[in-house]
């Protein structure tokens, strides 16, 4: 099945003359592979031809920095092989383990937080992995499936390089997420999970943000990474619509820096699915350690203004309103215009700004 996408975004920042413009035409392939009695695999690829002008690092386009004005991007690019061990199992074992061992290879959302259960491909509001790790998608190979009728799992070995697949000697990231089975969503309105990440990753912005991480990185590039995450989402029907409340928490270390990331979001969708509102608060805290200096020089402190060291906290409050021309229940057809205002409350680098965005989006 081939889907198409049109995306237009204009973002204004106070104090800046030219707004950031982004226009793209993209597509998505969803293909399943079946034989006479089994659907045994699937393939998903998403891509966009993007034109940008006057780039600004918005919530949904942090990756765009440094790219040429016209750029061909890929997003999802993965293959699933369902019930991968069936060839080695007896018929009774196959029945018993149906849906338990599925293999995924390629590029997809990182198994940390709610990204695996949330499609943020066309939205302005994003979850916290982009800020937390420097990327929300990575290249990996892993297993996923049902642990039990109540729990699912995702276990992945990731390259840790983000957009480009780069194997430059970093250890990569091992990720495990245990999550609630979908029946909790449909019977009680709950989704959630616990995840752990450990290993090394490549993230240019994480190095730039923290001199101590840069100083302690392997080869000046590989960041030792550890995270423990907790995520939850509750959907509640109301007489006049649906209310959704989301929370993501992630704590850990980048080298010697303590990391704490929090995200809280409330969404409301009117019953006719025509109008939606959302409010998000996100906060990222990085506790940088003093950088060990060569002998004869005093240790660099974040308090010394001459070093212009980044601050410890980045926080934003974002509100948005969406008018849907088309909002199919299974998200097979989407068409909306969106207004978003982000108030940056604290920033690690640079001054606090207000960003206003208008987005047109169509997916069919």
């Amino acid at each position: 099945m081939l889907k198409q996408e049109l995306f237009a975004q204009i973002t204004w920042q106070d104090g800046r003359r030219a707004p950031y413009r982004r226009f793209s035409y993209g597509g998505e392939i969803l293909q399943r592979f079946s034989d006479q009695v089994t659907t045994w695999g699937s393939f998903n690829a998403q891509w966009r031809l993007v034109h940008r002008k006057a780039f600004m690092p918005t919530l949904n386009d942090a990756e765009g920095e440094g790219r040429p004005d016209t750029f061909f991007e890929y997003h999802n690019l993965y293959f699933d092989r369902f019930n991968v061990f069936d060839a080695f199992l007896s018929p009774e074992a196959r029945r018993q383990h149906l849906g338990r061992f599925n293999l995924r290879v390629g590029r997809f959302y990182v198994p940390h937080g709610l990204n695996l259960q949330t499609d943020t491909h066309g939205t302005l509001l994003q979850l916290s992995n982009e800020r937390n790790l420097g990327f929300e998608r990575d290249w990996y190979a892993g297993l996923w499936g049902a642990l039990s009728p109540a729990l699912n799992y995702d276990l992945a070995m990731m390259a840790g390089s983000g957009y480009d697949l780069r194997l430059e000697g970093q250890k990569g990231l091992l990720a495990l997420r245990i999550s609630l089975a979908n029946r909790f969503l449909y019977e009680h309105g709950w989704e959630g999970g616990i995840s752990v990440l450990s290993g090394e990753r490549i993230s240019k912005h994480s190095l730039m943000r923290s001199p101590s991480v840069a100083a302690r990185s392997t080869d000046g590039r590989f960041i030792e990474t550890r995270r423990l995450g907790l995520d939850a989402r509750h959907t509640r029907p109301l007489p006049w619509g649906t209310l959704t409340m989301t929370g993501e928490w992630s704590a850990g270390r980048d080298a010697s820096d303590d990391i704490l990331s929090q995200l809280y979001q409330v969404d409301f969708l009117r019953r006719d699915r025509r109008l939606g509102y959302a409010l998000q608060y996100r906060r990222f805290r990085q506790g940088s350690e003093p950088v060990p200096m060569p002998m004869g020089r005093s240790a660099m402190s974040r308090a010394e203004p001459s070093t212009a060291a980044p601050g410890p906290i980045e926080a934003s409050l974002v509100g948005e309103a969406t008018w849907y021309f088309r909002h199919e229940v299974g998200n097979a057809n989407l068409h909306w215009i969106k207004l978003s205002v982000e108030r940056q409350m604290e920033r690690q680098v640079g001054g606090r700004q207000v960003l206003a965005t208008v987005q047109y989006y169509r997916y069919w």
Partner: protein
Amino acid sequence: MMIGLADVNRTTGYLQGRGLANRWLARPMSHRRKERRRAVEASFEVLHPSGAGLRGAFSPCGRRLAWLARLFPWMLLSLIVASWPTKACGAIGCTLNNPAQDLKFLYPEVTSFKEEIREFRLLPEGKKLYAGLKERLGSDLDPVYESYDTPYTIYSVFKGDQLIGIVHGVNVPGKGGVIQVFLSMDPTTGQIRDFFFQRLESRAARALRDKDFRARFKGLTLADFYKHDYFSVADPTNPADRVAGIQAPGKEPDQIFDFKATLRGVRKNLILLDLFVYDRRFEPFYQRTRDLLAGKRSDR
């Protein structure tokens, strides 16, 4: 994926070695092609960290082939995907979110299952069939939940090579939001084996999910719904009317509204299955009911 200078030059060298590039390059260049070449060179100057000396670094063949080299992996991927000898399916619309677990629950003896997508717009005379859905449902189709291009996923459940069940879900609008109605069917008789809600945004959810309420739908076929259309007009107390025996689980307006929406969802599900799976075997019951009701109206 970014194609680097080394990739372009490798491609250039390969094509030059086989004389392909030179034959292409021998054509006289129009003004528009010159402008395009300058734009490509300018874009590579942005890419290259030094931003200088690219004209020297690129051969004329390399500059021309830069775009082709950039697109080559995607062309190859598209060719592979397009030539794969299996049906194209997707997993959107009303689908089971955990098919393996749900189907194991419905059919404990399952060893494998197959997903197939059906869409009106891909069927011959799809528009006519879509209009026919509205007639057989007896009410207007919701533009959000029941549009012409809504995809439907059919799950065929197997034990070894034997087909043991069909499962299919539909969305209907309820008082509080979406109601997703799934039916588990006997593959040979077209009878309902089981019926469950995957999603029920309703304040009457508890009453509707009640096992006893749902058990009343077991054994029903689409023929029973068509017969109900006749009996409800001609003979409302006829005991052969199995659908009339299913009453709303409560007296509150929300419960009655969502009960009617559920009944409509079950009926729509059966009509779609009759079209996509059962080869319209229940169509004679629809025609017969229509003829009898027309006769009744003319008698008056």
